[in-house]
C-alpha cells in the first residue's frame, strides 16, 4: 500500500459556533499522527466562517482551509458531499478523513466514503497501533462488545464518537495558518427549510439531584409505576428514560436522556433495564454515582456503573421499596418542595 500521510479533519459548527466535536476530532487526529500537527489540515465549510477558521487555527495549532460557500446557511448534506469530494480529491496523499459522529458527520461521511471507495469506520472510540497497523475501535451490539477494525483502503473515512478523545487544555501551540478558498456549489435536490427548535422544556430533569431512568427492560407502561415510586425515595429526584421508552410512549420525549435528548449530571443515576448504548450513556456520563439494575450480567450499562445489580427490575424494585418501608421509613423526612417524580 502507498504510504499516505495526510489527515483531513472536517470541523463541525452550528449557529456560528464551533461545536466541541471539532476539538475532539483535533485530539484524535493528533493521536493518529503521533502528536504532530504537520500533515493535518482542518476543513471548515460555510458562509461566514472567517472568525470560526481563526478560532480553530488558534486553539488547535493546526492549519485550516476555510472553504467559503456563499449562501450556505447551516449544514447541507448535498453541499458538504460535493464540496468535500472536490476539495479532498486534490489531496494526493489523503490517508484519513475525520468527521464527527454527530447528525452532520453521520449524514455525509458514509456517502463520502462510498464516493471515494474508501473504508468507513463509524463511531470510533479507541485507537491503537500494532506492528505498523492502526486498529480502530468501535462499539457493537449496543456497546456490549468492542470491535477492532482495520482498513484495507489507501484512504479511510472515520467518524469519531464525541467526548472520548480530549484536547489537552494545557496544550501550547502556535496558531495554524488559514488558507481561504471559495467553493462553487449548487443545491439541486434538497431544499433547507429551516430548523424547528425543540428541547426547551426538560421537565426538571437537568436540575434533579437523583435521576431514576427506565429502559426497555421495564417491559410495559404499567410497570413505570415502580420507577416513579422508586424515585419518590429520593429528595429532588426525577424520572427519565431511554429513547426506546419514550418511543413507546411510556414517558414523554422531554424525559429522554442521551445524544438526542438531555445531558444530565445528577449525584445519583439509577439505570433500570437499560442496555447502555453509547447514545444513551453519553447523556449521563457526568453523574456522580451510578447504580445499574439489569437481568443481563454482561449488559454494557454495568461498565458505566459503580454498583451493579443483576436482577429483574419488575420484581427487584418492588422488593427494594418494601424493604425500605420496613427498615428506613421511620426516619423518612417529608420530601423537599419542587420535587418532581410525577411522570407524564
Amino acid at each position, binding site marked *: 500500500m502507498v504510504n499516505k500521510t495526510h489527515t483531513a479533519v472536517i470541523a463541525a459548527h452550528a449557529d456560528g459556533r464551533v461545536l466541541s466535536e471539532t476539538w475532539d476530532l483535533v485530539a484524535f487526529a493528533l493521536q493518529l499522527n503521533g502528536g504532530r500537527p504537520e500533515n493535518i489540515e482542518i476543513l471548515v465549510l460555510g458562509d461566514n466562517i472567517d472568525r470560526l477558521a481563526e478560532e480553530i487555527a488558534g486553539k488547535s495549532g493546526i492549519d485550516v482551509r476555510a472553504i467559503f460557500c456563499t449562501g450556505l446557511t447551516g*449544514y447541507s448534506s448535498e453541499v458538504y458531499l460535493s464540496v468535500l469530494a472536490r476539495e479532498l480529491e486534490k489531496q494526493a496523499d489523503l490517508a484519513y478523513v475525520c468527521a464527527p459522529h454527530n447528525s452532520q458527520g453521520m449524514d455525509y461521511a458514509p456517502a463520502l466514503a462510498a464516493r471515494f471507495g474508501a473504508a468507513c469506520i463509524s463511531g470510533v472510540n479507541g485507537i491503537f497501533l500494532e506492528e505498523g497497523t492502526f486498529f480502530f475501535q468501535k462499539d457493537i451490539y449496543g456497546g456490549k*462488545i468492542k470491535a477492532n477494525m482495520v482498513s484495507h483502503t489507501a484512504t479511510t473515512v472515520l467518524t469519531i464518537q464525541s467526548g472520548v478523545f480530549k484536547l489537552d487544555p494545557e496544550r501550547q501551540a502556535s496558531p495554524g495558518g488559514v488558507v481561504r478558498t471559495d467553493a462553487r456549489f449548487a443545491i439541486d*435536490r434538497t431544499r433547507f427549510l429551516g430548523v424547528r427548535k425543540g428541547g426547551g422544556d426538560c421537565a426538571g430533569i437537568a436540575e434533579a439531584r437523583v435521576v431514576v431512568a427506565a429502559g426497555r427492560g421495564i417491559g410495559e407502561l404499567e410497570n413505570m409505576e415502580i420507577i416513579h415510586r422508586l424515585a419518590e425515595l429520593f429528595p429532588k429526584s426525577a424520572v427519565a428514560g431511554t429513547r426506546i421508552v419514550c418511543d413507546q410512549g411510556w414517558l414523554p420525549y422531554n424525559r429522554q436522556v442521551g445524544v438526542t435528548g438531555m445531558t444530565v449530571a445528577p449525584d445519583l443515576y439509577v439505570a433500570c433495564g437499560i442496555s447502555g448504548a453509547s447514545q444513551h450513556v453519553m447523556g449521563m456520563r457526568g453523574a456522580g454515582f451510578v447504580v445499574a439494575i439489569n437481568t443481563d450480567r454482561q449488559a454494557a450499562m454495568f461498565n458505566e456503573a459503580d454498583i451493579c445489580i443483576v436482577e429483574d427490575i419488575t420484581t427487584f424494585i418492588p422488593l427494594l421499596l418494601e*424493604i425500605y418501608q420496613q427498615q428506613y421509613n421511620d426516619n423518612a423526612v417529608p420530601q423537599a418542595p419542587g420535587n418532581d417524580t410525577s411522570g407524564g
Partner: protein
Amino acid sequence: MKILVCAKFVPDTDHLIIKESEGGKAVIGDLSEYRMNRFDEFAVEEAVRIKEQSGGVIVDVLTVGPEPSKDVLRRAMGMGADNGIHLAVRGEQYLSPMVVAAGIADYAREKDYNLILTGAMSEDMMNGQVGPMVASFSGLPCATQVILLRLSSGRRNDQSEENPDASSDWVAVYVEREIEGGNREMLEIDLPAVIAVQTGINEPRYPSLSNLLRANKQEIETIALGGDNSVLKAPEDLVSTIVPPKMRAGRHVEGSAAEKAEQLLLILHDKALIK
C-alpha cells in the same frame, strides 16, 4: 410509486453471551435469537402507511444476509409489504456496510424506486452507513435520522390527469431530521431519494395473521449478493472483539434479591443519598 425498504436480521443483544477469553478478547457465544433490526421496523411501517394512504403504491422489502435472514422479509410482509427480496450471502462472515450498500444499489438500479427507506442504524453493527452509501452509489439525495416524513406532490401536476394514482403526483418528500439539542432540520428533497428513519417516527404494527399466511405462500426472490458483477471487496475488516473496559468501579452486589436490596439501601444511605 414504488418503495424499497431495507431490513436487517440481527441477533438479540440481550441474549448475546460473551465468553471472555484471555486478554479481554471477547468470544461471542451462540447467537440463537434473531429478529428484525428495530430501526427497520419503523422503516417498514412508514412504507406500509404510505401504501395504505394512497393507491398504487408497491412496497418491496430487501435483506442482505445468510439463509435465515429471510425471516425478516416474512415479518415485513406480515406487516403489509408486498414483495420480499433476499440478497443471499454464505455463512456468517463480516458483512461490510459498503458491500451491503453496493448490493442494494445494484439491485435497485433500473427498478425505478421512488423512495428507498432504511433504518438509522443496525443494532448489531451500529454503523449508520448503509443508507447514505446506497444513496451515493445510486446518485440519489439522502437524509438521515428522519423523524417525520410527508410526501409532497408538486410541479409534475400535468401527469396526474393521465394517471389516476395519487401517488404518481409525488415528486418530493418533506422530512424533519433530528439534530443535536432536540432540534429538527426541515428539508424538502426531490424524489427519488434515500431516507434513513429514526425510531419514534411512527408506531410499528405487529404482523397480521392473514398477511403472514400470504407471506408464507409467496415466493421470495433470491439472488446471490454481487451476482455476476464483480463482487466488491470489503474495504475494512472486523479483526477481533474485546470486552469493553469498566469506566467506573462496577462493584457487583451479590446474594439473594432481598440481600441485594438491603445492601443497595445501605450503600445509598451511607452516601447520604437516602435518609
